[in-house]
């Protein structure tokens, strides 16, 4: 039995969640407090006990969740930690209390006050206080030297973090940001609360500290590198009745790998995350198994080096390349390697982006690509490159989907625009070296964001000094608009601004979108309490406290 989320039901659910958020925001103070009293409680029908065997990439390069950007950390470590607020495990979208029982946002959006729960204990027995939260967020917002935290920019406008009393903490902003953006940042699964003492004892670096105390529903038992991480139920967990399973066995099984697929299909694990499409389709047909697909916070794209290559600095050439891509075919090319969907410059499933039906009518996204190619050729001619381009250095990250795509893209460029490129396949670490150093003409890879909110990607992916703006792209009109979008607190005004930004990106592409990733999960029906169909990415709802075995 599978539960597939189609566009209609996704929009309905997203709409309901959005409406809920709007209602919650507009409630009076007292009402707001009541609305926030929505701590996650277990399903009354849930059974206690048992061992959940979960397969996920879990060979992290280090143990510091804050410094990480990979599921290899958040997959196995999240069950041991809590966040200030969290996404509801039922829909993966609604923000609900976690260690903060409730919160208040000042009318001008410049103060976020969180009220922490009493009696929350870390696994080492120490009580959680606002000092721990302050130490955690000081580190995230202003990491010490040698500590690199990808979520730091989300808190760029956090000024002072003030401990009002042991259970009350206030974040004072230098300037306001949209509430959904800030609350989304606080609810991010990466921002786990750790002890101040832990940070002090380790000079702020937890990279090589395997078992630092959290407040989460599970406690560390043992770990065998690149094999299994075993955790047991935290009997003193603050959320009484949770977690529901006694033991977690988290197996290191790489994404899209035959090992993960075979381990799931042979019943060696109960729940598999990031299955390859072939195993997922097989799982979908199996009786007693549920298979779900959901959106991931990743764009697959290739960059055009504007500083190295004069032709690529011309927006007309970049738009021509953008239009020459047959995206439905590119999705098809990798369908047995990784699940993908067509999209533009903003997450295609985000409420502010151009709806899919509308997008599919635009040049560059249509199934019939003839009109787009015609326009692309016109643009090339207009830019003075009617004869095409020769000898472009196309750097390809050594991952199956990129290798498949690069060949298809190379052929599309040659056939549609007479652009000739030489593929150079390199290891991941080399790819980033080359991309940073600007040693490429074209370079294909994938990048992620922490939030679905356009402001996050507008700064990280397309920002003038954005860390992932590998094309070295600048467009003053866009940067100005992005800055306004970031500051605009009214959602109804933000939406048309985002559309306008999309239009700029369409005409002057900072990268060439190839596809947006999806995640394939599957689980045996004995696993209850979680269905990720409406989740965004695999980094927010990752705690397994709500899951039970029937």
């Amino acid at each position, binding site marked *: 039995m599978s539960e597939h989320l189609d566009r209609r039901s996704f929009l309905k659910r997203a709409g309901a969640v959005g409406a809920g958020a709007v209602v919650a925001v507009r409630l009076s103070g007292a009402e707001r407090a009541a609305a926030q009293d929505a701590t996650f409680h277990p399903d009354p029908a849930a059974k206690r006990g048992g061992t959940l065997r979960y397969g996920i990439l879990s*060979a*992290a*390069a*280090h*143990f510091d969740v804050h*410094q*990480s*950007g*990979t599921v290899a950390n958040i997959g196995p470590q999240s069950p041991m930690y809590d966040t200030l607020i969290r996404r509801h495990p039922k829909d993966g979208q609604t923000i609900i209390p976690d260690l903060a029982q409730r919160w208040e946002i000042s009318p001008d959006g410049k103060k976020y006050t969180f009220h922490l729960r009493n009696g929350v204990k870390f696994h080492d027995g120490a009580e959680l206080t606002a000092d721990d939260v302050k130490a955690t967020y000081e580190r995230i917002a202003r990491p010490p*030297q*040698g*500590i*690199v*935290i*990808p979520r*730091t*920019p989300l808190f760029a406008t956090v000024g002072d973090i003030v401990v009002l009393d042991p259970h009350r903490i206030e974040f004072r902003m230098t300037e306001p940001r949209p509430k959904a953006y800030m609350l989304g940042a606080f609810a991010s699964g990466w921002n786990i609360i750790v002890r101040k003492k832990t940070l002090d004892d380790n000079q702020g*670096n937890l*990279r*090589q500290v*395997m078992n630092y105390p959290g407040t989460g529903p599970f406690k560390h038992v043992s770990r*065998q*590198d*690149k*094999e*299994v991480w075993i955790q047991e139920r935290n009997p003193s967990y603050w959320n009484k009745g949770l977690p529901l399973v006694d033991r977690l066995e988290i*197996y290191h*099984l790489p994404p899209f790998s*035959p*090992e993960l697929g*075979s*381990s799931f*299909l*042979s*019943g*060696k*694990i109960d729940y598999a995350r990031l299955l390859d499409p072939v195993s997922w389709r097989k799982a979908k047909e199996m009786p007693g198994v549920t298979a779900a697909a959901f959106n991931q916070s990743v764009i697959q794209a290739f960059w055009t080096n504007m500083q190295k290559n004069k032709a690529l600095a011309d927006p007309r050439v970049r738009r021509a390349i953008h239009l020459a891509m047959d995206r439905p075919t590119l999705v098809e090319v990798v369908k047995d390697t990784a699940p993908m969907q067509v999209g533009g410059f903003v997450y295609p499933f985000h409420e502010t982006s151009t709806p899919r039906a509308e997008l599919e009518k635009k040049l560059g996204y249509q199934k019939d690509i003839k009109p787009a190619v015609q326009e692309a050729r016109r643009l090339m001619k207009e830019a003075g490159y009617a004869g095409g381009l020769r000898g472009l250095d196309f750097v390809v990250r050594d991952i199956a989907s990129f290798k498949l795509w690069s060949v298809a893209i190379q052929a599309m460029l040659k056939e549609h625009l007479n652009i000739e490129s030489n593929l150079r396949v*390199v*290891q*991941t*670490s*080399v790819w*980033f*070296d080359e991309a*940073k150093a600007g040693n490429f003409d074209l370079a294909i*890879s994938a*990048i*992620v964001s922490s939030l679905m909110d356009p402001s996050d990607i507008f700064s*990280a992916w397309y920002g003038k000094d954005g*860390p*992932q703006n590998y094309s070295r792209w600048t467009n003053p009109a866009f940067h100005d608009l992005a800055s306004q979008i970031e500051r605009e607190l009214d959602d109804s005004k933000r939406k048309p601004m985002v559309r306008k930004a999309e239009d700029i990106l369409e005409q002057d592409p900072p990268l060439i979108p190839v596809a947006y990733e999806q995640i394939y999960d599957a689980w045996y029906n004995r696993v209850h309490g979680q269905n990720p169909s409406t989740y965004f990415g695999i980094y927010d709802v990752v705690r397994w406290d709500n899951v039970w075995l029937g």
Partner: protein
Amino acid sequence: MRKYLARRAVYAAVTLLGVSLSIFVILRILPGDPLVAILGVEGHARMTPTDRVRIMADLGLSAPLPVQYAHWLGDIGAGRLGKSFFRGDTVAELIAHRGPISAEIAVLALIVSWLVGLPVGILSAFKPNSMPDGLARAISVLFIAIPGFWLGMLIVLALLFWFGYKAPIVIVQLWQDPWRNVQIVIGPGLVLGLAQGAYIARMSRSCLLEVIGEDFVRTARAKGLREGLVVLRHALPNALLPVITISGVLLGFVLGGSVAVEQAFGVPGLGRALVTAVIERDIIVVQNLVLLYAVIFVVVNVFVDLSYAWLDPRIRYG
């Protein structure tokens, strides 16, 4: 004999020193930044030059190369073998945990190669150019030609789709649970063993054919000995020397092949650890594992050389 041993020990030490120096230099000049694996793509993109300097110093990578090399040799001398860049695990722990599985696979492969290769070689040599000989030669060539990792993947898929079976996904040592341990090592051991067995079959066939034509074999036959005895007692011991030599060389193939075959079977042995370390640019792990493989290869070949004297009384080392 002592002189010979001392000479071989010196050669071995020089060889290993050369290997250590080569792998040390190669790993440092290869492109690729270990900080991508440590900080992740986003973290790496946001890293400032100051952060880089600090992290490289923490990892011990900012010291001059001769100093780094001397530290490594010091670590080897102390038996620590250094620490992984990433999680702080020592390479010695890694070897202690994963080594036994890889060793079992290598030993199993060796046993399988002899158990399969030698009888097939004898059978072929018994009746050269007969149908069984042709069949044995064809199968030998097939196993030499088929890549181990591909055969491994086929076996894994066949077991999964026909029997819903998969071997245990975490290491179970022989002394912990022999049955589950065997399930882990049997697949890679067989695949590697059959490939090596094919070489041994071909080598033993050609050596036996050569020896069977010798005068002493003709004499044995003339005495009226049964053909089986002629082959097993007189011809085979004399044909074994080259087979033993090739077994030592083949161990190198087993070690190299185990990297891909462990990956195909999903066995968390040393070969797979090496693949992961290469991808992560965990150079401390890579250099120690490569050196370990080199040590095994050199030591085995010394033993192979020494075994000649035991197998053939005419050979003496001085």
